[in-house]
């Protein structure tokens, strides 16, 4: 399906025409012509088509009973054919390009869909080992960043654009040359020069930096990136591995213990981890076994949510708990370094039984277990974890030590102290945004302003850009050449899909430009890989681009024995940490699941994606557990003031969000919001800047005071929304859930004793089960060909939201904004319902479960019979269709939908979106109608993909589609393969057919005899019999 890439030849002309376009004053107007020339027929010209289309409807109102399209002279539409059609481009047919990207500390392969040169969607590259076809929310949403109207569009000098006119590539290169000259003059040999980069594992970048060092021998290289695993690297250094990193192999792990770690959420190679983790969860169907997950964490993460046993424990206690675990293991005869064991014996753990059970489980699963520690934890804690993994001979099986591609560099804190001392007076920042993301106590903004000369390359005119002497616009990774290496050493080429919409530079061309070298990043990348090529470079280059993977791996696995001497020294003086109290609380700062470290703050999709656990959109908040909240007398929406004791008396006023699962007397806050220094039209006014509380290297601080201050703040959640009392609703909801068979969950033990699960589900069945499928009437037999159906495996779903993001990208779903989410008018077609179970007063008993829910395409859909104009009726292939243009908007169907999955366009959202962010329209998928004011919309089972596949099949002369011929957007993206879509009428059993035969298969609200085509696979918790199951299931 990927088309052989040859931009170089065929693309060129087409791109240049785009380049002119980028320079022209009114680019949008031109884009309408240039871009979807063909797509003019494919209704995607920004706004226009839909608007004229609305016009048509509007006018037709005047002609009662007549056509909606005829009876008025339609607006004169133009067709603008290509001048020279690029090779292998067929108007209206998508093209797929392989590339690679770095998202939240993970590098994985991508497959970019593009229509007439517009990238419209990003998916995972199946042949890339770190992606295997899946992606995450960040990757899905990053396509929107290309069209971010606030992306930096010109060079800034001391924070002001050097010219008001639209910047041309020529002008940009000119000022780059000037900057280069100035840099040479000021920096000289670079003794006082520093280069600040992000943790980007790119060989070509490394070679460029090498050259940079040759030109400026004295230059200090520093890395500042939320994804940078300093503590892990430091720990490995202590153990004798230079410049190394860890690669997790969850596919081999039967017991996973995560301590304040989130391998399935935002830490490390999330996509691959999830893929591998899921194989050990879905296996419960094949051979009745599955992995067991223990999690000890201060606040809910995706990993914590899927845990079979979850300990709600404050961040500062992770170290001692690990020591205790080590001791417990030693007691069971596992040989560990003496220093660790003795330390461990001194600790008096609060959860001895839990630790003992875990120890036993780990020991029994030697070599098949894995202990993980979060990146916020200190180096020595990582060291202990490694020691334990080593003792359990997990290293090599579930864990690998690999050489890192990153250049060795100093952390930001050291750079800052150098700057303070004045031993740095020139700074070149690439991509990083330290002014916003640096710890508050570094006062980085002041520091950077003291410098003689500072350069910045960034995608946005962000805080650092404004503070620096000069800022240069960076191109999106879909607009530039480059290369990236994954943790497992897989290298891939970053290949452009579109010419930069605005004059901008890649890191490579920027740095080489500063060295006065006129070299295109394309040549730089090629020269890096010349050596790798087997015989004919040109052909292997093409193959690499086509596959999206470079045949040979970079770096290697380190197998030499760790040396614990260094670690042992670190442990001296380590003991039990002080326990936080209501007056002296513990602060926990986490990376955000929507905006990461703030870099996605201007991405409307991500801002509106409901957080996995809190379901919070457009904001972050101070999260406290219900117990603590009750004690402190604060509730959701209240304002509190957080004060860091000691050193810098930093304060922050922020709103409270009460949510179960947060450790006692801990306040947790996500970073990346409240970017006062950057006024993006999306990011402005969202959340509170938690960086102002970040001091030192650690993301958790002890002894902070939290005091209620007057005033309240409205937090927009997509669950329990708008309710007067959040607590009331979560609790009543959880209570109600016990009697409703909506979210079904059993323990593995129960499942084994009751393989059909009939006994376990008895309490949920209303009336006789056999009646749930019997109807009073005879269904009309219109059904022929494929019969579409879907199963969603609740056992592997980690609630990561990737499906929601993918669906939004695929189906042109509008963003509605905070005000309307508050009114519960969000438009997501697939939402992930989060349910808590357990007793709010006992944090350890709290568990969360996820249920992705979209239209279930009921065979006896209640929505259909109530529509007065037959706008939503059944398709012959068992889909519940909506003809948007037939809908008159009574909302009766939405009312009558028991799953509440129908969404109404209360305003002309898509039009508003286009007016607010003029470029967004270019992302629209031409195969899906853009909805307009006053119509209902909902999941269509990606009917556009179904139709495309059917048409292709019919053209080939086939009737029935093979299993896998149609993959829905949510299924394609799902990193845990929880979603399966396929043909139920398949003779040879399709995957979905088999899954529906599983005893775990159940229909939500089956007693209503809706015969939904989407059913769910029961969640199974593999609880340890030695421990009380956290909740009675």
């Amino acid at each position, binding site marked *: 399906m990927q088309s052989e890439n040859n931009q170089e030849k065929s693309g060129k002309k087409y791109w240049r025409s785009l380049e002119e376009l980028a320079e022209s004053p009114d680019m949008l107007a031109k884009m309408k012509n240039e871009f979807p020339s063909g797509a003019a027929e494919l209704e995607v010209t920004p706004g226009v088509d839909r608007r004229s289309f609305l016009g048509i409807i509007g006018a037709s109102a005047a002609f009662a009973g007549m056509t909606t399209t005829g009876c008025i002279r339609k607006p004169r539409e133009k067709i603008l054919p290509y001048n020279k059609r690029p090779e292998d481009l067929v108007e209206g047919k998508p093209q797929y390009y392989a590339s690679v990207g770095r998202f939240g500390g993970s590098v994985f392969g991508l497959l970019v869909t593009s229509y007439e040169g517009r990238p419209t969607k990003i998916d995972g590259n199946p042949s890339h080992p770190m992606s295997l076809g899946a992606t995450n929310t960040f990757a899905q949403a990053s396509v929107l960043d290309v069209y971010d109207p606030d992306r930096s569009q010109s060079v800034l000098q001391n924070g002001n654009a050097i010219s008001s006119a639209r910047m041309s590539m020529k002008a940009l290169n000119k000022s780059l040359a000037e900057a280069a000259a100035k840099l040479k003059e000021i920096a000289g040999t670079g003794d006082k020069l520093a280069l600040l980069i992000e943790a980007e594992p790119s060989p070509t970048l490394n070679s460029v930096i090498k050259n940079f060092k040759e030109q400026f021998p004295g230059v200090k290289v520093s890395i500042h990136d939320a994804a940078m695993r300093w503590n892990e690297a430091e720990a490995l250094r202590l153990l004798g591995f230079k410049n190394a990193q860890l690669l997790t192999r969850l596919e081999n792990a039967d017991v996973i213990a995560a301590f304040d770690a989130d391998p399935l959420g935002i830490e490390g190679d999330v996509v691959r981890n999830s893929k591998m983790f899921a194989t050990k969860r879905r296996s419960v169907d094949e051979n009745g076994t599955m992995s067991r997950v223990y999690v000890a964490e201060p606040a809910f993460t995706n990993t914590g949510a899927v845990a079979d046993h979850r300990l709600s424990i404050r961040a500062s206690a992770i170290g001692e708990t690990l020591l205790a675990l080590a001791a417990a293991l030693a007691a069971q005869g596992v040989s560990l370094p003496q220093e660790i064991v003795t330390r461990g014996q001194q600790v008096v753990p609060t959860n001895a039984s839990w630790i003992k059970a875990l120890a036993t489980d780990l020991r029994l699963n030697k070599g098949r277990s894995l202990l993980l520690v979060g990146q916020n934890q200190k180096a020595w804690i990582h060291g202990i974890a490694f020691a334990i993994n080593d003792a359990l001979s997990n290293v090599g099986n579930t864990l690998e030590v690999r050489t890192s591609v990153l250049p060795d560099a100093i952390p930001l804190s050291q750079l800052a102290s150098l700057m303070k001392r004045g031993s740095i007076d020139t700074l070149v920042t690439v991509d990083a945004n330290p002014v916003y993301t640096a710890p508050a106590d570094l006062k980085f903004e002041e520091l950077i302003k003291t410098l003689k000369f500072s350069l910045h390359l960034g995608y946005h005119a962000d805080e650092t850009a404004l503070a620096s002497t000069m800022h240069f616009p960076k191109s999106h990774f879909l607009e530039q050449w480059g290369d990236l290496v994954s943790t497992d050493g897989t290298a891939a080429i970053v290949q452009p899909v579109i010419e930069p919409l605005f004059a901008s530079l890649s890191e490579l061309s920027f740095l080489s430009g500063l060295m006065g070298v006129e070299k295109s990043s394309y040549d730089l990348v090629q020269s890096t890989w010349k050596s790798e090529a087997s015989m004919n470079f040109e052909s292997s280059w093409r193959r690499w681009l086509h596959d999206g993977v470079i045949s040979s791996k970079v770096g290697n696995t380190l197998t030499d024995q760790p040396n614990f001497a260094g670690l042992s020294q670190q442990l001296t003086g380590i003991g039990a940490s002080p326990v936080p109290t209501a007056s002296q609380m513990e602060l926990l700062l986490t990376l955000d699941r929507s905006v990461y470290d703030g870099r996605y703050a201007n991405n409307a999709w991500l801002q509106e994606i409901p957080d996995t656990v809190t379901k919070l959109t457009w904001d972050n908040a101070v999260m406290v557990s219900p117990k603590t909240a009750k004690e402190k007398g604060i509730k959701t929406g209240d304002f509190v003031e957080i004060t860091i004791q000691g050193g810098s008396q930093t304060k922050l006023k922020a709103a409270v969000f009460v949510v179960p699962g947060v450790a006692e007397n801990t306040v947790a806050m996500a970073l990346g919001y409240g970017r006062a220094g950057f006024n993006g039209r999306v990011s402005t006014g969202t959340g509170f800047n938690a960086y102002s509380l970040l001091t030192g290297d650690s993301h958790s601080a002890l002894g902070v005071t939290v005091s209620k201050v007057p005033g309240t703040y409205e937090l927009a959640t997509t669950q329990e929304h708008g309710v007067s009392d959040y607590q009331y609703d979560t609790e*009543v909801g959880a209570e109600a859930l016990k009697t*409703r068979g909506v979210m079904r969950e059993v323990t593995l033990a129960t499942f084994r004793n009751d393989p059909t699960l009939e006994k376990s589900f008895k309490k949920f069945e209303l009336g006789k089960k056999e009646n749930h499928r019997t109807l009073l009437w005879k269904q009309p037999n219109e059904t022929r060909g494929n019969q579409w159906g879907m199963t969603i495996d609740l056992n592997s779903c980690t609630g990561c939201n990737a499906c929601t993001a993918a669906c939004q990208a695929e189906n042109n779903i509008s963003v509605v904004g905070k005000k309307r989410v508050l009114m519960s008018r969000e438009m997501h077609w697939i939402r992930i319902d989060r349910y808590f179970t357990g007793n709010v007063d006992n944090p350890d008993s709290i568990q969360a479960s996820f249920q992705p829910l979209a239209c279930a395409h009921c065979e006896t859909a209640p929505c259909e019979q109530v529509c007065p104009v037959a706008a939503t009726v059944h398709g012959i292939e068992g889909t519940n269709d909506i003809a948007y243009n037939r809908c008159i908007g009574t909302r009766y169907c939405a009312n*009558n939908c028991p799953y509440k999955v129908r969404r109404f366009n209360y305003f002309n959202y898509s039009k508003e979106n286009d007016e607010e962010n003029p470029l967004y329209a270019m992302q629209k998928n031409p195969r899906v109608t853009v909805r307009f004011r006053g119509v209902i919309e909902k999941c269509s089972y990606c009917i556009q993909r179904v139709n495309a596949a059917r048409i292709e099949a019919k053209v080939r002369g086939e009737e029935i589609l093979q299993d896998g011929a149609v993959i829905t957007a949510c299924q394609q993206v799902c990193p845990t393969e929880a979603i399966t879509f396929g043909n139920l009428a398949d003779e040879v059993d399709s995957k979905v057919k088999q899954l529906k035969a599983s005893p775990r298969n159940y229909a939500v609200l089956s007693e209503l005899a809706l015969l939904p085509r989407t059913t769910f696979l029961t969640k199974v918790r593999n609880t340890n019999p030695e421990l009380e199951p956290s909740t009675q299931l």
Partner: protein
Amino acid sequence: METSVTLANLEERVDKRAPLVLGRETLSSVTDIVARPMEMATPNAWWICFLLALSGLGILGGSIAYLFWEGVGVWGLNNRVGWAWDITNFVFWVGIGHAGTLISAILFLFRQKWRTSINRAAEAMTIFAVICALIFPGIHVGRVWVAYWLFPIPNQMAMWPNFRSPLLWDVFAVSTYFTVSTLFWFVGLIPDIATFRDRSKGVRKFVYGLFALGWRGSHRHWLNYERAYLILAALSTPLVLSVHTIVSFDFATSQLPGWHATIFPPYFVAGAIFSGFAMVINLMIICRWVFKLEHLVTMRHFENMAKIILLTGSIVGYAYAMEFFIAWYSGNPYERYIFVSRATGPYAWAYWTMITCNVVIPQLFWVRKIRTNLWALFIISVFVNIGMWFERFVIIVTSLHRTFLPSSWAYFRPTIIDISTFIGSFGLFFTLFLLFIRFLPIVAIAEVKTVMPEADPHNHDNKEGAH
């Protein structure tokens, strides 16, 4: 005092009590009494009320214009609660309308002579209420400009409406109801308009003459006329019952807990009559006082209406209780929960307002003193209408905001436009009603005459007019 009142035994109890027309009124004096409001110089009170009503109408116009311009989003609705004030107001107004038809049609069939002096005003109220009601389903749709798709009109799309949808049944039921009520009302008006043709001069004479259709009291006409009137009454009776039944189908035929209930049709009809009569009382008390109709609209009329309110109010109360019982008895957790949450959840305040106004307060009518006291009558009737509006609100909103999946629970808050649209609809109603009392006979003159002793051809002890 009597313990139960049924329409059947109402008549002879009532006849024992008081004549239908008080004082020494003659045929022509009756005409004069009714004619007074139309022939007297416009009272200032009328002008003040009319201006108030007009400004209300203006608010309605403004709100609707804004709604059309911006979209349905200007209301507080959301993806969980897709209907709220819009449909509440619709059901509320349709309900109000029912009393009119009940008085004119059903009481007519039951030969309830006492209806004659109030049925004209009541019918007018019906028509105006139904006009107000018709607005809401009209403007609540997302794309008003294609609302005509609701009617089976041949079109290039070869598409037809879906006759399985209760909403489409509504379209037919309510529009039929409106048409038939209007015809019924006009037929009743013909002889009286003729009366005014013969009383008035100039333009008025011409206009009345136009609408009198040349009525000359011919008894050959009366023969067909009475038969047609009787049949219309006979048709309207099942019609009025069907209309609110079908309105209740909007909810009953869905499968939402709190909506899906077989008890709805009778319960809705009772509720409609309940609120309708309350409205009639309010209106008649005012008209009677302003236009000195004490001799035609007697306390006996009010007392009868009060009794009907008492009866229907109790029926409604019974329905509320029965809903709870069924919910519990069904053993269906969803049903059980929705009713518990109505009484205890976020909307408990609305629920208890409803109970107080609809079930508790009307019980005061057991006391004769209260049901014969105009002030009490007026205030209690107002409460009844508040209660009935809340009944619809409770049914629609509380059911929608707590459906099957706890994840989809939400809360509805009205916006200023919700409120202004509702208030505006009263403006429309009173504008029409004030015009009516100014230009048309608010009492059916010919009918009142038939219930006077003079009307009986065999009444020989009456010497009136004999020489």
